[in-house]
């Protein structure tokens, strides 16, 4: 069998010949998708809810402040003995990263995937990224890869450290998409990430680290609290 150049035409003809005797379905405009009766609105409430929910799905959430997140990260790197860390250049965290992480442990994702593949899959134990925001209701990060922070940075290294600012957290996905007008245009890849990768495909027993990171650590910068 070869490719059928008329497939599109034939399919559309059949679709257009359909009859619709039933009446119009009820309109759902404007949609209300929120499930909570009174969703929290304050940044602190949202940050607390996010941390609770994210912990439930095995994210490790570490609270810190705008002034001490760098040293918190340095402590973490030391405590967990991360030796080979990958990050994106020219982000709002990159300056602090190069100050806080020993130079022989830190690399920048500068190369094209094609030439970088072998190193990417063998060398790095940790990837550090910024995140755009988070969803408190489900404890999910919004990861927004770009030219500086490629998609594989939060995927291939066994540990993913994400730097999240409390003030960016929204209550739910629907509200977030609306507030940030996602429908006006999306990047080539946008992600909601809720915990380390996992599977229950073997006898329903939950195991972490299926194909993506085995560990997800979130530095939650409480920029809502006074003195930060």
């Amino acid at each position: 069998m070869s490719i059928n150049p008329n497939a599109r035409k034939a399919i559309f003809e059949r679709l257009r010949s359909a009859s619709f005797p039933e009446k119009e379905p009820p309109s759902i405009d404007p949609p209300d998708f929120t499930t909570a009766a009174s969703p929290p609105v304050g940044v602190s409430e949202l940050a607390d809810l996010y941390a609770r929910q994210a912990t439930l799905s095995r994210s490790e959430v570490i609270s810190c402040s705008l002034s001490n997140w760098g040293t918190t990260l340095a402590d973490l790197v030391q405590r967990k003995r991360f030796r080979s860390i990958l990050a994106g250049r020219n982000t709002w965290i990159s300056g602090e990263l190069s100050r806080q992480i020993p130079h022989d442990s830190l690399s920048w994702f500068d190369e094209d995937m094609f030439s970088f593949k072998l190193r990417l899959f063998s060398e790095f134990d940790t990837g550090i990224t910024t995140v755009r925001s988070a969803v408190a209701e489900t404890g999910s990060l919004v990861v927004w890869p770009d030219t500086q922070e490629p998609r594989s940075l939060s995927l291939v290294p066994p540990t993913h450290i994400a730097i999240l600012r409390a003030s960016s957290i929204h209550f739910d996905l629907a509200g977030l998409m609306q507030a940030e007008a996602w429908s006006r245009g999306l990047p080539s890849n946008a992600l909601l990430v809720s915990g380390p990768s996992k599977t229950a495909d073997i006898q329903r027993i939950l195991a972490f680290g299926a194909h993506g990171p085995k560990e997800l650590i979130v530095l939650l910068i409480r920029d809502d609290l006074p003195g930060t």
Partner: protein
Amino acid sequence: MIIEKPDPQAFKSRSREAVQDPLLRRNIREAMDFLVDRRASQFPDQAEFERLRAIGESIRKDSLRRLPQLLEKLEARLQELGVSVHYAETPAEANALFRSIARRHQARCMVKGKSMVSEEIELNHEMEKVGVSCIETDMGEYILQLAGDRPSHIIMPAIHKTKEDIAKIFAGKIPDTAYTDDVDELISIGRRELRTHFRDAPIGVTGANFLVAETGTIVLVENEGNGRMCTSIPEVHIAITGIEKVVDRLDSIAPLFKLLTRSATGQAVTTYLNLVTGPRRPGERDGPREMHLILLDNGRTQAYRDDRFRATLQCIRCGACMNHCPVYTRVGGLSYGTTYPGPIGSIISPHLLGLESTKHLPTASSLCGACGDVCPVGIPIPKLLLSLRQASQNTLPPSSQPLIGQGSGRSIPEVLAWKIWRLLYANPQLYALFTWCATRMRWLTPSYQGGWTRARAPLRPARRSLRELISQQEGKAMRKP
């Protein structure tokens, strides 16, 4: 690797075998109970479930109503983004598209995320014929591919295997692997093996949970991260899905995602919601340079054109209907001999494969209604099963266009039996005569009564009919002073 070709015509014999396998029955029962409980914990409030379901249903209905326009809109957006859009009427045509893309890149290997549509077209098998190995990367599917087995559930494909089974498969099929039934170890073996494939394969293949017309986005819902690997690492990404998956607006994704994850595995959210909008853009360092979307018909337009069957296409493939189905729970997914088992399989397979080979499937239901009750997009599955039963007996109203294989379930003895039944039950004198004879000659009842006695005691008329007993009682009462 030879995999037995599935055959829905063998449904009855295969389900009889499955019912007699206590271990299999226990595995499936436990798994389904688990999923049923998990789902229930996510929808503690029935009213809230119904509110969400009404939203999901109207999004899917509205999308189907405008399907041709939405496909055009999607196509236009995807073309702007640089994605090639292809259509295939049949599995063979879809496979031809895969082959030509693979040939152009001289690919010998593809990594594939979980995709039921790729199962529908038997992609792995067809690619193997031309020397391209298509590697399943979802852990469950990977296990089955190693074992030469088939998925028995659309969400948890390897649900019929125990961890000991899987330990044996890994030790036997993966070089230098010792037997271990520790689940963490098994998963890390799978991870290690598959990572080399993610790294080396030139093509990644995925399905799509939803397609968004206004943004040109392919939406993938998963926990493992293999879908992300397939859409991030290889130079080429091919997505394949059914033509019905498109919705107009991005804001429809939030409620559909919520309904899908809660209904499927009872999770409030999966680990990843992956929104892919076109190939790698200028300045980006990873992501595919080339992207294709293959939209498959394969009988979907047959369901679409008829108002009675269109709701079949509302499905978001959550699997809740099978988890709650008393038939599925007893016979298991493999008995159906189709890509999609359970209630959803029974309503979609007749369109994909024709009624001739699938006529038994719509009868594999007690019509208890559980499937319709839990369906997150309000598909009236029992009603659809009844319409398909009618179609297989060729009794759909003549106004409708016939389905492929319509009338193939009609049997002369059955038609005769019903004719006689109608005659007897419509005429009081005949009916009285019939019951008088049946009760007086009950010693003549045969002990073999076709399908009925295969698993049950033969039916025997009572000594006297109820009418007779009542009139005797009344006679006695009258005679009393």
